[in-house]
């Protein structure tokens, strides 16, 4: 496999098929844990780890997994890694474990992972599958951070726990409450739709001028 193709494979998940902004998958953890940038980052890293490991294992076992029970096999594989991550986070930082709550275990039902296993890992050898999974994972993390930072800055006036504004800052509390998650993600999608539209219009202008 050539260098550029590997890079393409990796970048696909980050930009062209970003799981959060383009495919709108894995919404539940995206909105629930992004009240602060730290939470968003750790959730992203945990999901990426599960994604890479599960895709590798799914890809390794793809030749002898019976087609009829493949979904069940994938779920069990994913659940195994999630259990490991769950215990790991509990051991490393109890505060983080409490903040993320049940959403660590709910990584099992994150559609991104099952989607990747079914759509990519089951048809490709381990290495490309892992690269693709890593791209998706990073893309997911970027998406989470995009939400987490905006919500933390607006809702708490801080970034990664560091206060940004002076004591006179009046926090926009609704941003860290549930409605804020919907609003911020909606705003990001609006922005991307507007940018896409502008690009299309520019391309159309160029086409008519020629």
């Amino acid at each position: 496999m050539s260098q550029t193709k590997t890079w393409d494979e990796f970048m696909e998940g980050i930009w062209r098929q970003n799981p959060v902004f383009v495919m709108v998958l894995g919404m539940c953890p995206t909105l629930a844990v992004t009240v602060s940038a730290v939470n968003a980052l750790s959730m992203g890293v945990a999901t990426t780890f599960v994604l890479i490991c599960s895709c590798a294992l799914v890809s390794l076992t793809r030749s002898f997994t019976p087609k009829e029970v493949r979904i069940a096999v994938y779920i069990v594989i994913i659940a195994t890694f999630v259990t490991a991550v769950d215990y790991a986070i509990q051991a490393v930082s109890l505060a983080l474990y409490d903040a993320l709550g049940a959403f660590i275990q709910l990584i099992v039902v994150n559609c991104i992972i099952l989607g990747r296993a079914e759509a990519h890992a089951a048809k490709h050898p381990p290495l490309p599958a892992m690269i693709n999974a890593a791209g998706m994972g990073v893309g997911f993390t970027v998406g989470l951070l995009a939400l987490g930072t905006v919500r933390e800055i607006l809702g708490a006036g801080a970034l990664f726990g560091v206060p940004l504004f002076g004591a006179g800052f009046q926090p926009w509390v609704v941003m860290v409450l549930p409605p804020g998650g919907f609003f911020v993600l909606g705003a990001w999608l609006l922005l991307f739709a507007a940018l896409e539209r502008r690009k299309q219009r520019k391309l159309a202008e160029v086409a008519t001028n020629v």
Partner: protein
Amino acid sequence: MSESAFQIFINALLANNFVLAMFLGLCPFLGVSGKLDTAFPMGVATTFVMLVASLCAYGLNLLLTYFGLEFLRLISYIVIIASAVQLVEMVLKKYSPTLFRALGIYLPLITTNCAVLGVALFQTAREYDFIQSMTFSFGGGAGFTLALVLMASVRERLTLSDVPSVAQGTALSLMLAGILSLAFMGFAGLGG
């Protein structure tokens, strides 16, 4: 646990609505809420799966705790939920083929609906007893149905109104969900 069954029900239904306050089950919420005709059955099917899953998870948790196998909890829950969904699918296919076709891909996707696994996990984490677990899952399911029906009704109206074309699609749905969620925050504290 001192929470009464009624408090748990109201909490799960309104104050801590699964979709709008706890962000569980957003995929079907955004996916199936286009039409009222499919939104309601979907909610009922999910509620049924939640009840079955909650019942099985309760028994299973007793068993796993007895044998000291708590680390198998997640895996066994998900297997149980998958079987429950399979059951609902077979029943629906036999008794209402039209509905079965209308729900399409979203029916098997109930397996990966975090609301269902969420019920099982939360009832374990909060150490609910049997009655509490059942009311919790029923309240959660009813809340999910309520959110889905509300959303579908609003979106049906919206198809007739003039929305800027940039905002159409998911962005609009998310903004709507945000407003609904804001409204549901008014219920905070109701469950005591």
